[in-house]
Every structure is written in structure tokens, then in C-alpha cells.
């Protein structure tokens, strides 16, 4: 069913583009029923243009682009992107220092790939359950509520960015502070992980009101 979209310049029948080359190289037999139907649908319907932040090169990652957009202020994508690349460089440098100083048996456990560290850190920061305000009989209660994947990722990224912007020494730059936070989050330490645990404890404490949720 085609629903008219609120204020999109595209006709609602346009589908999202698929940029990654690997998804087109799968042979026909491996696809499931749904994927086959999707393929047939794509052959008939028009497809939207790929946005400028998306590319099929190895270096473009949707999570990194999302994080860069959230860090961006007043549309200054150039600055945000350079900060992001400096952060990744800083992480790599720190990990390499640790790697070269570590004894032989620990060398394999140290992770040097900044992308892997970034993804793992974000995963560790994601809360499992969230709180929402529900008003019953005049009083507002904090009710524990399950979160969608998108919301979890958004909260993790938001906490990281606010943490880096506020709780730093006046002279430290953003890449320096962000790399510190990401490495701490990778090892399940640091203020962001603490915030996540606080949220979980609050949700556990308000378990009694869980039945107020109606969705």
C-alpha cells in the first residue's frame, strides 16, 4: 500500500538505494523468498538518488556518518569530519603505543582497528531499557519501557557527545577527549557506561510501575 509521505520531494513509490557492492554479488540460489520479492520489486519501481554522505567505498560506514552528523554544528560538515578522522587517528596511535609496550603474550588481545573499537564502544554504551514519563491521576511516573534499536544507538551517541562537550578540561580538544571516552567505553569503564548503569538501576527500581505501559 502506498501512503502519501509528509513533505518528501520524492514520489512515495520511490525505494531506498542499496550502495554496497557485496549485496549485489550474491548468487540467486542463496536468497530467501523475501529477498527475491524485494529484488523483483526493485526492478520495477524507481529508486531515490544516493545522498552525498553515502558511498560504496570501503571507508564509508553508516554509523560513522551518523555520528559525524550528530557532532556537526550549524552545518559545518568539513569540521565534523576532520574531528572524526583525528579521533580515529588518536585511537590508533594510543592503541599502537600500548601494543608496542605490551609483552609478547598480550599482544594479540590488544585491538588496533579504530572502527572495531568505535563499534564495540557504541554497543557497550547502548541501554537495554529506557524510562518514559507517564501521567496517571495527576502524578507523573517514570515507567520502564523497551527501546527500539534506533533509539538505543541514538542515546549511546548522544551521551558520548554530551559527555565529551561538557566534562572536559578547558584546553583539551574534542578528538583527544573523544578517543579517551571511546577507549574507556570499549573496556566497559568510564562515565558513559556509568550513566547507562544508572539508567538500568532506575528502571529496576521503578519495576512496580511497569504495568502502566499500554503499548
Amino acid at each position: 500500500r502506498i501512503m502519501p509521505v509528509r513533505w518528501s520531494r520524492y514520489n512515495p513509490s520511490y525505494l531506498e538505494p542499496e550502495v554496497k557492492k557485496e549485496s549485489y554479488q550474491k548468487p540467486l540460489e542463496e536468497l530467501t523468498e523475501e529477498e527475491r520479492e524485494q529484488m523483483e520489486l526493485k526492478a520495477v519501481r524507481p529508486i531515490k538518488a544516493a545522498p552525498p554522505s553515502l558511498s560504496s567505498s570501503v571507508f564509508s560506514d553508516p554509523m560513522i556518518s551518523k555520528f559525524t552528523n550528530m557532532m556537526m554544528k550549524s552545518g559545518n560538515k568539513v569540521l565534523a569530519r576532520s574531528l572524526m578522522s583525528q579521533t580515529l587517528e588518536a585511537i590508533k596511535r594510543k592503541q599502537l603505543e600500548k601494543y608496542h609496550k605490551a609483552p609478547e603474550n598480550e599482544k594479540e588481545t590488544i585491538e588496533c582497528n579504530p572502527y572495531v573499537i568505535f563499534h564495540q564502544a557504541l554497543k557497550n554504551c547502548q541501554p537495554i531499557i529506557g524510562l518514559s514519563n507517564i501521567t496517571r491521576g495527576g502524578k507523573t511516573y517514570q515507567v520502564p519501557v523497551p527501546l527500539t534499536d534506533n533509539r538505543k544507538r541514538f542515546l549511546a551517541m548522544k551521551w558520548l557527545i554530551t559527555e565529551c562537550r561538557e566534562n572536559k578540561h578547558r584546553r583539551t580538544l574534542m578528538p583527544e577527549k573523544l578517543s579517551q571516552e571511546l577507549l574507556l567505553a570499549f573496556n566497559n569503564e568510564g562515565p558513559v557506561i556509568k550513566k547507562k548503569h544508572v539508567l538500568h538501576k532506575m528502571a529496576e527500581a521503578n519495576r512496580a510501575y511497569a504495568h502502566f505501559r499500554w503499548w
Partner: protein
Amino acid sequence: TLRLVCTTTAVQRKNVGASGPEKYTEAFIKKQIEEFNLGKRHLANMMGEDPETFTQEDIDRAIAYLFPSGLFDKQARPVMKHPTEIFPEQRKIQWGEDGRPFHFLFYTGKQSYYSLMHETYEKLLNVQKHQDQLIAQDLPLQKEKRNLAGSRWLTKIELEEMLLEKVSDDDYSRFIQLLEKLVALPCADIEEKYIQKFSKEVPVQLQKVVIEPLQHDERGVAFSTGEGKRKTARATAVVYDNGTGKITVNGIDILHYFPVLQDREQLLFPFQFLGRIGKHDMVCTVSGGGRSAQAGAIRLASAKALRSFVTEKEVELMRQAGLLTVDPRVKERKKPGQEGPRRKFTWKKR
């Protein structure tokens, strides 16, 4: 409330026929048809052509010649068409001389819509009865999958034209749901003819675009051109074969013209997607727009140029990756009473 911004012409056409009962009598329409035919013969005579073989295109050309008009709106210019195209089809009077309506559902207000729903539901029950019979006889149910991708249901406007009365959004969605339910049953092949009345063929491949053949340079090098646009930027790209991967924009190397990495990534996107990074040379000209718009325009132009170098399947893959569509997003206009396109003025209590 939901609103369609970019719509096809089919959706924008107003259905005048469904607005109410008869406005023109049958005798009036017959007279108009006779007058039109006479006028057609007179016109053919005036233009010195054969009245028997005077087609509608000839009529349009003759009228444009005899009554030249500088008006911008095409629908305001003088036109001579067959009366059935000018006066839309409309419902005849639904009641007899004694005032008694013909259709039993007349007093529901939407008689054709409800009778259609009743008919479709009857077909559904029919299919279910057939299915039960087959199960009772222990015969296997036919499970031929209908090709969903090749056909689409009638749009709301087309349904209104068919029923000659107004159909609301809710009614339309209910009808489509009922049709989907009917199609989902395994033995729906019995009612195939009935379903075909409400489904339309979609052109199977969206490859209506013609791919130009390669042209050859004086030195024998194959090249092809492409044009692209994004926001206000317009770009033309010439992609040469047997190259080293050099890209020149307005006579300047891309490293100097696009200092930002994101723009260069966009330029290389089509080449990287097809795996042909070091094999082609490109010379482009671009004007208008900003830094990112120019990059997007060149990307589109190079993708269009690369179509001539590449097989049809790869062209289809490029289309599915979103490289060949023109990006329709432009800057939204500022509205009166607001500070910007969306931002309202600061609310002041007094």
C-alpha cells in the same frame, strides 16, 4: 494531515464526472458530436486536405496555425476536441419518473462503491467455497504465485473514474485491502478475470532510457558524454577510455578544485562501484550551485556517461544503487508569516 508534494499528473487530475448528477443532457452531447464532425470536415476543407483522413493531430496543428495564442497556460489556448474528451462522462439520473430509484443501494449515498464491495466479497466467498470443496475431495490446492511486481492496483482517481462517483481515502484503502485478501487465497485463479479489471500492468523494466553508443576520438580513443544536475549546479562530463584515472574539472585537477574528501569520494563513487578506477580519464565542466551540489552533478554526469561503456545488467545495478536518478531535493521556499521555510517567529506572550 498528510500531503503529497511530488505527484504524477494522474494524481493531480480532478475527476469532474464524479462531482454530481447530470449537467448536460444526452441530446446536448449528441448535438455537440454532430457539430464537431461537421466542423472537422469544414476545417479539412479550409486547410486543403482530405476530410476523410483528417486526424486529431491535424486538427490540433490547424487550430494552432489559425488561432495563434501567446497564453502561457496550455489549457487556456483554443482547443477543438471530440465532445467525449471535453465533457466528462457522468452518471445518468438514478431514479425513474415516479421518483423511485433504480438501484437497491441508492439511499446509502455511494451506491456503486457499496455494490462493488458486495460483488468482491461474493467472489471471496466463492473462492473459499471452492477451496473447501477441494479440501473435502482431498485434492491439492493450486499455489501458483501471482507476479506481484509486474502489476499495480488502480489508483483512487482511476477507481473514481470507473465508478463515476467520489471515493474517500478510507473507502479506497478498504477496497484495496479486500482485493489483497482475495488475491492472497490459494484458489484465487478462478476469479482472475474479475481481478484483472482492477489491476494495471507496470512496465516490467524501468529501462526506458536509451543508452547512447560510444563515440570515437581523432586518436581512436572511445569516449562518451553525460550531463547531470543537482540543486542549481549543471555539469557535463566526457569519459575517455584507456586512461590512467586523471579527472579534470573546469581545467583544474580535482585535488585543487575539491579540497574536501567527501566531494572527491562522490566523484569516484561510480568508478569504484563498477571497479574501473584506473581505467578511465574524465574531463568535466561544471557551473552553478555550491561545492557539494557541483560534486553531485558531476557524479550524475559521469554515471550517465559510463552507461555506454558497461553491460545492461551493470546499468541496472547502478540504477539500484541510486547513481542514475536526478536528486529532486531543492531549497524550500520561505513562507509569509514565518521566518524561514519551517522556523516560525519567536512567540511573544504580549
